[in-house]
């Protein structure tokens, strides 16, 4: 940067020099001479007089040996590493400057005289709509880099051109995603995508471009644009941002983007949130934000805006992760060290995504460091984690490998409960990512991921589940206006139970689903106010819903295989981000999705106008391989708009709808490893959702405070729920157990964030409700009288506070407080006599609630010092989870003991859990 500044200084000076007579040459030599003395020496040898404030030069010493050198060159050298500039006024006066305000008084046509510039210098006088250079009230143009882009075409009538390029980290060479790129005074702005690419429509001529991003030093660049062109920003990391808790990646985004309900979480920014067992976790950070909740501690799966846990599309580098958690949700399956950022769409979902109703968690891995070998590791009480990055082809290709494993067995061993101390539990996950910039038009990325959990609670059973995904991405730039990206991905989720007990009922049970997706997406920036995004996607699902086999020769369990299901989900999508005027930005998206349930398979046909059960079964139809069993589909509207009420105050509204063709079968409130996924078929219709949201966004004191208030209303159709007493696992005729009904959810989300200062953090409050209605003319298909009832995760009040206080640059403390209304449950409420015995009878579905949930976590963090040359940067974190020792019931259940029914509540962490973690980075 410094060097460029110097060049710029020279450029400015020389412009002036052209109009001058020769600058005198001098011979002079300095060795660590105080600057004032040096200037005095120059004064002595020339006719020049210097004008400056002594304060500016107080500490400055200069060194240099000049023989017959022009004075301006001498000064350039002397002031090279300083903030000083100079100005040769006429033949005898030199003004030293700490800024270049002096240019304010330059004539308007200063650069405009064609005879004073080189041939390729712009003919500014031909451009009516640009002002003179360096006009403005900037007092900071000293550091301004100026770049000329393109060659002017005199025949062109165009007044705007496209500028595109990449934002790169100057140190690591890695792309910087989600960097705000703003054109000063012109209400033009964009942000870089996940690969650091951006594209902007700019008016011809001079533009001052500011970039802002978290962890990145702010930059200002002057771009003089003559034609379409590209420019890469080389940006420095900002040291200050390193230990701040910031969740928003882009400070202006809150107000600026057109879409509602979007949140960006950057892993680097969440490390001070106190978390359980020393893991910093992007998904756990997500639940501190309004609208995203889990059913409780230890529950895996997220409920977004009153949606079910299966309605979230969780993508890791564009591949789907089916079970995003380890260890029943205590840890997320996403390695925090390899994760770059997570973008969560809970309101408006861009047209390029589809297939799930409630949200998209678009998690992107970091790009590997192409410059040098580096790594990061952490040691915690339960897990250890290491990530290594190495260049393969310097500056072009690099590989990152990350792995995480647990040694949680000792925790179980150390527990008093004998049964628990005999159990084992372990998990690991590995991720490898390769990124290769082939040339400026082609970029290749490949990610492989595998996670596996295995646990055994008693000696006779072993459970395991795993996620596996592979994704391949190729970004290609066809022209400055058109880019395309191809994604191929495959992911698989499976679980298994091995039961090896004393008697002859040992079994081995398995479940698996696999999906393969092809997606091609193009972006086209035609110039003007439109920006198009369109493409096609197609996904093949293969589900093996379950099989059970005898384990060992003595087992009398008979083998059973539930037939495989297949389905093809395809979509075409197009969206246009249209800037109607300075204030109004509309994001119009349309997606048409189409689903075909494919054979080979069996489908049961039931009588019309009768409840589905074994008695109303008419026949079983056989379908051949690839024969279409049933098709579903429809248009999905994704419309969102932003309107500026004031420069830092906007209102946004969106309406959207979606279809979902794959459903989990789970009557637990939480995701458990025995949840299976079921494809839509002849009997099970796709789920649908319709959402409208409206929000107000206001930033105060130059983005120091961010305030947002967002409301939504959502209706859902064909939600999958279950008949009372439903059995889901290994059930061939699952449609006899499920019901499809309507959902209704609404809520108001309030969030205030303080982004800067010693004390920063956020406070969120959500009021939301979520209901389900299961009505039918048949008793067995009607729940709660066919009226709306609270869903399993209807938690009206949700307060979340994350606060971080920095004592010094190295020491900080954080606190996290959560309060939530207890979730609804169905209790047994009494007994009755029937058929010569006693039975329990249950309340209406979800009639009661478990006690409210609240929890306070604290942590204290210490960073190693920031010496640049140090081998490794270290970070200590000491945290206490659940400081108040609140015994938050996770679940309430009932067992029959000695003929009496007793209620028990289970909690995961009923006591404060202290954790110490050591991280280091090299």
């Amino acid at each position: 940067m410094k060097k460029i500044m110097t060049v710029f200084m020279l450029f400015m000076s020389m412009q002036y020099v052209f109009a001058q007579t020769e600058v005198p040459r001098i011979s002079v030599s300095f060795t660590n001479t105080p600057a004032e003395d040096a200037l005095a020496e120059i004064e002595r040898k020339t006719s020049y007089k210097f004008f400056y404030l002594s304060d500016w030069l107080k500490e400055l010493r200069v060194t240099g040996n000049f023989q017959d050198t022009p004075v301006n060159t001498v000064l350039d050298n002397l002031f090279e590493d300083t903030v000083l500039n100079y100005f040769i006024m006429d033949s005898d006066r030199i003004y030293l400057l700490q800024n270049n305000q002096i240019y304010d008084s330059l004539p308007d046509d200063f650069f405009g005289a064609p005879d004073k510039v080189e041939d390729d210098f712009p003919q500014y006088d031909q451009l009516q709509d640009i002002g003179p250079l360096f006009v403005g009230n900037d007092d900071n143009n000293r550091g301004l880099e100026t770049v000329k882009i393109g060659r002017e075409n005199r025949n062109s009538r165009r007044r705007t051109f496209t500028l595109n390029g990449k934002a790169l980290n100057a140190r690591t060479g890695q792309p910087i995603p989600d960097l705000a790129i703003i054109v000063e005074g012109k209400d033009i702005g964009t942000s870089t995508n996940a690969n650091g690419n951006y594209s902007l429509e700019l008016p011809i001529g001079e533009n001052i471009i500011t970039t802002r991003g978290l962890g990145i030093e702010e930059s200002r660049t002057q771009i003089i644009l003559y034609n379409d062109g590209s420019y890469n920003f080389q940006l420095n990391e900002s040291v200050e941002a390193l230990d701040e808790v910031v969740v928003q990646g882009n400070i202006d985004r809150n107000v600026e983007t057109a879409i509602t309900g979007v949140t960006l979480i950057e892993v680097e920014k969440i490390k001070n949130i106190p978390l359980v067992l020393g893991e910093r976790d992007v998904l756990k950070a997500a639940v501190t934000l309004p609208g995203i909740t889990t059913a409780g501690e230890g529950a895996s799966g997220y409920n977004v805006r009153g949606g079910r846990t299966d309605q979230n599309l969780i993508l890791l580098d564009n591949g789907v992760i089916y079970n995003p958690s380890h260890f029943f949700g205590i840890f997320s399956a996403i390695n925090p060290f390899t994760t770059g950022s997570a973008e969560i769409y809970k309101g408006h979902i861009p047209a390029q995504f589809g297939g799930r109703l409630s949200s998209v968690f678009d998690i992107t891995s970091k790009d590997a460091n192409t410059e040098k070998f580096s790594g990061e590791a952490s040691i915690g009480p339960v897990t250890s984690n290491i990530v290594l990055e190495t260049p393969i082809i310097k500056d072009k290709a690099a590989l990152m490998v990350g792995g995480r494993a647990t040694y949680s067995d000792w925790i179980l061993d150390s527990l008093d409960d004998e049964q628990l101390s005999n159990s084992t539990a372990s998990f690991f996950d590995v991720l490898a990512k390769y990124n290769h910039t082939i040339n400026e038009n082609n970029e290749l990325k490949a990610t492989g991921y595998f996670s596996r959990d295995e646990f055994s609670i008693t000696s006779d059973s072993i459970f395991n589940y795993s996620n596996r995904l592979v994704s391949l991405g190729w970004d290609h730039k066809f022209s400055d206006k058109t880019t395309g990206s191809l994604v191929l991905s495959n992911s698989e989720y499976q679980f298994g139970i091995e039961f090896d007990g004393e008697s002859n009922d040992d079994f081995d049970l398995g479940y698996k689903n696999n999906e393969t997706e092809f997606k091609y997406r193009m972006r086209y920036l035609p110039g003007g106010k439109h920006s198009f995004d369109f493409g096609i996607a197609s996904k093949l699902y293969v589900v093996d819903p379950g099989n059970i086999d005898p384990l060992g020769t003595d087992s009398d369990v008979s083998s059973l295989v539930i037939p495989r299901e297949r389905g093809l989900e395809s979509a075409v999508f197009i969206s246009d981000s249209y800037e109607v005027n300075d204030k109004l930005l509309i994001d119009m998206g349309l997606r048409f999705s189409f689903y075909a349930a494919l054979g080979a398979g069996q489908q049961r046909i039931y009588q019309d106008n009768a409840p589905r059960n074994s008695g109303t079964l008419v026949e079983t139809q056989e379908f051949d391989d690839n024969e279409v069993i049933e098709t579903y589909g429809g248009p999905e509207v994704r419309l969102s708009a932003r309107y500026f009420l004031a420069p830092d105050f906007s209102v946004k509204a969106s309406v959207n709808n979606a279809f979902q063709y794959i459903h989990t079968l789970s009557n637990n409130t939480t995701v458990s490893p025995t949840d299976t996924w079921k494809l839509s078929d002849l009997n099970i219709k796709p789920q649908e959702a319709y959402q409208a949201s409206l929000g107000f966004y206001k930033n105060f004191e130059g983005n120091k405070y961010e305030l947002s208030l967002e409301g939504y209303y959502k209706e859902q159709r064909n939600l999958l729920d279950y008949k009372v007493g439903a059995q889901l696992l290994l059930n061939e005729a699952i449609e006899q157990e499920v019901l499809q009904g309507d959902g209704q959810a609404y809520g108001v989300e309030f969030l205030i964030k303080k982004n800067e200062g010693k004390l920063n953090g956020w406070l969120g409050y959500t009021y939301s409700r979520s209901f389900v209605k299961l009505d039918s003319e048949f008793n067995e298909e009607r729940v709660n009288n066919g009226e709306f009832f609270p869903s399993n995760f209807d938690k009206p009040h949700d307060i979340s506070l994350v606060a971080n206080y920095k004592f010094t640059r190295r020491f900080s403390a954080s606190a996290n407080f959560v309060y939530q209304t207890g979730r609804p449950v169905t209790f047994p409420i009494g007994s009755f006599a029937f058929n010569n015995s006693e039975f329990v009878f249950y309340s209406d579905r979800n009639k009661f609630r478990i006690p409210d949930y609240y929890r306070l976590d604290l942590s204290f963090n210490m960073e190693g010092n920031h010496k640049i040359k140090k081998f490794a940067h270290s970070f200590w974190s000491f945290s206490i989870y659940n400081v108040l020792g609140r015994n938050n019931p996770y679940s309430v259940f009932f067992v029959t003991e000695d003929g009496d029914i007793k209620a028990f509540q289970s909690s995961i962490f009923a006591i404060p859990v202290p954790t110490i973690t050591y991280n280091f980075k090299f």
Partner: protein
Amino acid sequence: MHSFGKHKIKFSVLSALLIASCIEPFNAVFTDFESALVIEATITNEVKQQEILLSRSFEFDADGPISEPNANVRIVDSGGNTFSFSDQGNGLYLSEESFGAQPGVDYQLLVTTSDGRDYNSDQTPLKTGTGIEQITAERIVNNDGQDGMAILVDSFDPSGNSKNYRYEYEETFRVIAPSWQPVKLVPETEFGCTMILVRNNDLAQVCYETNNSNQIIQTSTEDLDEDRVENFMVRFISRQNYIISHRYSILVRQFVQSDEAFNFYSTLKELSSSESLFSQTQPGFLQGNVFSSENSEERVLGFFDVSTVSEQRLFFNYDDFYPGEDLPPYIDPCQTSSPVIANEGGCVLRPIIEIGAGVYAGDSGAEPGSNQGPYLIVRRICGDCSVLGPQEIPEFWIE
């Protein structure tokens, strides 16, 4: 319908343990407990006085069940006939006249409780179907590795209409009190502690105990190629169970159920299995086909089923299957003791005999003063089987 019930419970409980690093009693407060009417009614094609049971649900810690007296109970059929029922006490209502359900006729149960509330069932037709082909008894080793007797049912419906079968049984067996003596102890005088032996003519040596099934026993032929029930085990009796010690008889009753009734019973059974964190059973209020006529919010439990019934009985002796083998242990280990006649506190033996806690089982031969009495005493059940059942031979009994 395949289900995965067998392994489910173990699996559920185990899973709960892992997560539940803290499990403690939860004081559930059921503030709005409202006792619900429970209707248990199975009307059959058999011409007899039909039975209906009315009771009320009760809280967990309360004693139950509570019968529902003085209700007006009647069944109206689609032919316009009304069958009235009268309260027999203990919640049992019997039809005033004998009748059997007819095919092609819809029946509706109407109940008006003593507080004036009206309840009704859906219109329910008779589910027609086949009768039991045969029942057999067989010595087997069951899936848990236990030796014992299986009672198996065969049934076949060539028309394929029956499909849903529910079973009840009533088992009657001969019990012989192992410690029975021809003499018994009685007090010698009105007030003294001394006991004397007299001829025993009231304590029973041989009795006939009867038990009813209390499980929901169902099978379906839905998934089978033909509507045939073959060797379906309605009852398993462990070889260690005293009930098969001598002669055993079982009456198996088969009900052919409608789909709705079958689902109600099977779901009820499902819900009564262990419920915990990872269980895969969806809990909730189980709605049958009986409702409050006025208030759709009021919960009514139970079911009104109209089904085809058939029954068969069989007998077997222990010797038929376990010739020469030891008898199963008696219901009680029959440990003897020798309480003293009296001590400083007063009479000891006399009250034990008088309240019927123990009976005479022989002489102890103990020396007087050795802190033991002269007689061997056992628990009453060992010397008097009338605790278990009547001495009279049942009418149906065949030797």
